């Protein structure tokens, strides 16, 4: 066997192992969500296929899962959109205009992204309590926007830097303001990049846990991660089937998103990290 052949066998084997490694917990999750018995792996236990876990998660009033899902989608989408809008303005200035202290600003923002969330959550909690915002969407949307801004800024700067400056000049000659140039010239040209950024900001906001844990006390603004983390049964027993059904419902859109936009997500992630 030549070296090339053994290499391709190794690579194929590695690829299979990688996929199994990444997907097997999801497989287990999906199986449990479809089974009457969360302990179906025990010998002599029937699997008992059922949709009752999904039905009870979706329909039950006491679980509030659909409220968590709605909250998560609204909060993450709002944060992602605001974050990308604000970061676009800043990224335009950083790549086109003489921002005073530009490099300091970029590095300040970069270091902000590495702050441990626990070092600001108590103060955010006090702030939101004073404002009377605990258990509201804005109590999470604003911190999430701020939290995703470093990521959005760094990715957008790398995309905007690729848009030819000549386009700006043409716009200026036509009498457009800088803001008009950003909206009419840069946005259309950099649309794929802006979309990638928004997708990543959405995923980051969707996955956030600590802020949501401290800034919500009931289902009115609680998000999916906290909802699933605190999912307990009424009778002391952990309702594994229902929890896994909730996890499955959460995972399905994520799977679709990553399958469809795999290239965009990878591009955005790499720009945010490696170029940084």
């Amino acid at each position, binding site marked *: 066997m030549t070296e090339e052949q053994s290499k391709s066998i190794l690579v194929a084997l*590695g*690829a299979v192992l990688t*996929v199994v490694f*990444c*997907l097997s*917990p999801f497989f*287990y999750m999906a199986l449990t969500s479809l089974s009457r018995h969360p*302990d*179906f*792996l*025990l010998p002599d236990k029937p699997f008992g296929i059922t949709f009752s876990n999904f039905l009870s998660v979706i329909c039950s009033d006491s679980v509030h899962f659909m409220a968590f899902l709605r909250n998560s989608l609204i909060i993450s989408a709002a944060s992602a959109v605001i974050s990308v809008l*604000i970061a676009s*303005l*800043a990224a335009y*200035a*950083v790549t086109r*205009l*003489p*921002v005073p202290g530009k*490099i300091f600003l970029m*590095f300040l*923002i*970069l270091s*902000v992204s*590495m*702050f*441990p969330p*626990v070092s*600001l*959550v*108590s*103060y955010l909690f*006090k702030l939101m309590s004073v404002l009377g915002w605990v258990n509201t969407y804005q109590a999470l949307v604003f*911190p999430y926007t701020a*939290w995703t*801004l470093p990521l959005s*800024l760094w990715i957008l700067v790398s995309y905007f*830097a690729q848009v030819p400056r000549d386009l700006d000049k043409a716009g200026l000659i036509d009498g457009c303001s*800088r803001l008009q140039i950003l909206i009419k010239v840069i946005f259309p040209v950099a649309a794929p990049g802006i979309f990638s950024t928004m997708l990543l900001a959405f995923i980051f906001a*969707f996955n956030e*846990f*600590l802020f949501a844990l401290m800034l919500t006390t009931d289902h009115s603004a609680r998000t999916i*991660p906290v909802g699933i*983390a605190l999912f307990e049964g009424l009778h002391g027993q952990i309702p594994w089937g229902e*929890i*896994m059904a909730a*996890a499955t419902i*959460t995972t399905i859109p*994520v*799977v679709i*998103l*990553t399958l469809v936009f*795999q*290239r965009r997500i*990878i591009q955005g992630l*790499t720009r945010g*990290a*490696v*170029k*940084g």
Partner: protein
Amino acid sequence: MPTIEKEQWKALGFVAPLLLFVVLLVLVPVLGTLADSFFRDVTYLPKKFIGLGNFEQLLRDRGFWRATRFTCLFVVVSVPLEVLLGILIALILNERLPLRGAIRACVLIPWAIPAAVSGRIFELVYNYSFGAANYLFRVLHLTEGPINWLGSEAGAFFALVVADTWKTTPFAAIILLAGLSSISEDLYAQAKIDRASLIQRFWRVTLPLLKPVVVVTLLFRTIDALRVFDLIFVLTGGGPGGATTSLSLFGYDYFSAGDFGYGSAASVVIFLLAFGLSITYVKLARFEREVV
């Protein structure tokens, strides 16, 4: 032509909303936490300035040292493991494979779902009486009886490392993949002409050129692992008996008990650790040459 000064004001106007958000919702809270750490700030008691009192108490607090030791051990074990596995996966993803897009998407999924969700999945995997981990060990005859994963110190640590590795290796792999794909094919072609074997090519060409990206990934993952919270909160709750309480969880526990002063002091320590590392990271970043 607009004057330079006018342009600068305009530039500031564009940056202002970003600065406003970051200052009000990140920098002010961090400084507020720092200020709180100098106070006795407990619910129902009057707030009182106690200087470094909280920090002195931290130094004497065995729970704090235990959390520090656990956090460091967690970083030292999980981060290298994740980066090593990440390199392997990146090497595979960099090859021409059928269904490459689908395989890459599969790798992204663990990264893309909330850690709280994967934490619950792993909680079930490690369930003592019917979880998949003990099922596999039984079917493969690896142990005599079931293992008490989440109820023993070593078991809980191992469980956390595995769950964290599963969740974050994809991220490491994606970053490393970007580094790999920027290595020129010509170098490999030349190495092949020089009759370098597969393994030699990896050690002599791939690894040296990948080194900067490996360093960045290590640092990125270290900063992230240092502040680990979600997974531990869900999977072990810091247990058994506080054995897997990370520094972030330690701080949070005091916040949720209403002791904001002491919790803030602990948070300041985590902040300083992460900040020190992020300064190193920022120094490595080559932003100036690339964009401005």
